[in-house]
């Protein structure tokens, strides 16, 4: 398999270079860098990379990055989109998802202090999955604590729910929780049953179901 090609966009050259360096060291091929939303859109159309990593806040305006990311999601569904954001606002993430969690990610910029988090998210997205920042998921989960269903979950189950929502694979979740995949599968069946959700074998649809459930106001 050839290298995964990436376009990195940020109006700050230093940030752009830093992100590119981490991704390059992680085995991705940086095919182009962009300094604003329009340039990014043009490059993506021309190069059809596997992944675009973009700053949410980019010219034009202060939300050009998000607009361009949505545009790429609409025009080029095969291109993965990872938005780096300084806003802990689930609404941005939910909007970015649209109707699917395929090849999409919303990561807070503070994750850049750990190269592995960025690389992990980039790999999940290029593999066709999703990467939602734990802090964003946490805000959604905490917002639902009024919900009787959620309060019925055990702490461990809630941890597992958050990891599912973040877009991690079953194996990754099992590793983090220190349990076997079998145990995790049993646990997630229990979680879905308690929330009244249908357990979907498709990972992306499962993630979406959880996120939509969490975002549903009441």
């Amino acid at each position, binding site marked *: 398999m050839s290298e995964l090609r990436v376009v990195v966009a940020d109006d700050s050259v230093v940030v752009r270079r830093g992100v590119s360096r981490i991704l390059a060291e992680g085995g991705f091929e940086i095919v182009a860098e962009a300094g604003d939303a329009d340039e990014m859109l043009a490059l993506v159309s021309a190069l059809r990379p596997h992944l675009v990593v973009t700053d949410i806040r980019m010219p034009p305006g202060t939300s050009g990055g998000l607009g361009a990311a949505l545009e790429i999601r609409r025009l080029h569904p095969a291109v993965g989109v990872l938005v780096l954001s300084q806003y802990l606002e689930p609404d941005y993430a939910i909007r970015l998802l649209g109707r699917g969690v395929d090849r999409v990610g919303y990561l807070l*910029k503070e994750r850049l202090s750990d190269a592995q988090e960025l690389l992990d998210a980039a790999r999940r997205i290029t593999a066709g999955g999703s990467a939602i920042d734990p802090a964003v998921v946490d*805000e959604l989960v905490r917002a639902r604590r009024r919900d009787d269903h959620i309060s019925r979950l055990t702490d461990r189950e809630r941890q597992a729910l958050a990891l599912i929502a973040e877009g991690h694979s079953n194996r990754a979740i099992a590793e983090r929780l220190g349990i076997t995949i079998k145990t995790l599968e049993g646990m997630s069946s229990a979680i879905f049953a308690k929330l009244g959700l249908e357990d979907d074998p498709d990972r992306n649809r499962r993630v979406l179901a959880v996120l939509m459930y969490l975002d549903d106001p009441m």
Partner: protein
Amino acid sequence: MAHPGFPGCAAATDVPASPEMSRRAASVATAGVTLFAFATLVLHGASGAPTSFLFAEAVTGMTFVVAGLVAAWYRPTIPAGPILLACGALWYVGGYAPIGRPVLAELGFAFEGYYDLALGFLLLLLTALGGGLRSLSLIAALAAVMAARTVGRLLFLDPPALGPGYPPNPFALFADQPTADGLEVLSNLAMAVLFILVGAVGVRRLMADGVVARRARRPIIAAGVLAMGGAAFRAAEYAWATATGTLLVDLPDPAHEVFQWSLFVLRTLVPIAFVAGVLRTRGEAGVLAPLAASLGTTAGSGDVPTEGSAFRGMSLGDAARRVLGDPSLVLVRARQAGTWVSEAGLPVDPPRTVGDRWTTLIGTPDTPVGAFVHDRALLDHPELLEGVVAVVRLALENERLDAALQAQLDEVVASRARIVAATEEERRRLERDLHDGAQQRLVVAMLALQEARSLAAASEAPPDLAVRLDALAEELTAATRELRELARGIHPAILEHEGLGAAITGLARRASIPVEVRLDIERRLPPVVESTAYFTVAEALTNTQRYAGASHAMVHVADTGHGLEIEVTDDGIGGADPGRGTGLRGLGDRMHALGGELQVRDGHDHGTTVSARIPIA
């Protein structure tokens, strides 16, 4: 006590500047004329004049003198006082004719009848019909003709026609009987015609009268017309007697006696009517009370209506026209800039006195607040005019204060709105600066740190270093997080990017208690409205979480088309006092600045409701 010299009413006038001075002069003149009268009467008495003659002589002259004093005292704005006093003096001059003493008798005879000239002058002054010029030419002609008669009697007539047995006339330098007779006849005929013309002017005035206020002048003018008739008759009689040697009206006694007494009464009618007019208008200021009481109700000041006021709802101009009885009166207002506007608010030329249209300034001459342009006849009612001017002056000054206050208020309202908008802009700028500046630098620092970490991992660095770098990364992450919360507290980016709904949903998500959100907003609203609404909901939710001990809250925000209605309710124990703390009070101020309002209903055990309304311009 009347003060005809009140400020503001004395402008645009051609009469003596200081009423106090003219009063003093009138008093001195009165004393002088009275002494003169007394001396004349003593001389008459010494000459053996009958008592009835002395009585008539004293009463006629002194009537003029008293009327002159009253006029000078209460009507210093018109020269009626001096003229009437002059009439009195001239009356006694004429009285020397039959005194029977040489020189004095000739002088008296030569200058007899001049008081009729003065009376005619006064009558024309009071009617003032068709401007001053024509009236003055009548008086000038009359004076010239009378002077001709005086010349004839003094220089050509010898012996004087004062009765039989008179000594020669010492002034008769050109003694010539035919010339003297000719002058006497012609001048008297001309005088008769001129007196009739002057009387006709008065009659025209009486007929043309439309101004209610001039009614007070009517008796005086009528008396003046009668007096002119009498004067014309006497002139005609002189001409007739000189030409034919017989009397024009030769009546047997006692009819003759009655006729003479009628002429006497005629002469005194004018001063008597004048004094009566003055006394009558003295009480007119009484109608001012309802006008003053109604000031609050006249259009333009819009205050509480006064019960039973006759002027309720009237404009200031209408009220003045009604009280002063001059339908032709016009009220003009002076603007601070020195320009003038009509009652309809249209710009007009500065008011001037033209002919009969008299201008009375309201306020000080230097800084008038307005003026009445009115019929000159209103000057007959100085107390009334003065009172109305004073009342209207108050009203106009009030109007000005109201307008100034309103302008100030408008400016304060506008500047408050500008301040709120500027604050909003400032907050947004601050938020952007934090994101693009400090936060960006933190990200750069984190990337550098990350690089350092991978270098450390790849090299033979001491294990301590990796631990310290990890700790540093945690610090940087914490700093980023705090900065993010700070920026969101100043002005959430999501409010600008995604609108009020998303921002409020975020607030509800982060709340420590369940918050139900209902949003009826379909459009983006002006930034200042959105942010004010956002911070109101945020503050209300903060209060709910901090003090109310509530288990549940509800936020409802609805766009009604012309305004945003916000309601935040909880099921707590209350305690959200807008007067306590600066949070809600500051938001209330912000609401007011935008023309909206904020209410806090503390239901104690039934929860708290914060409701607000922000108009959308």
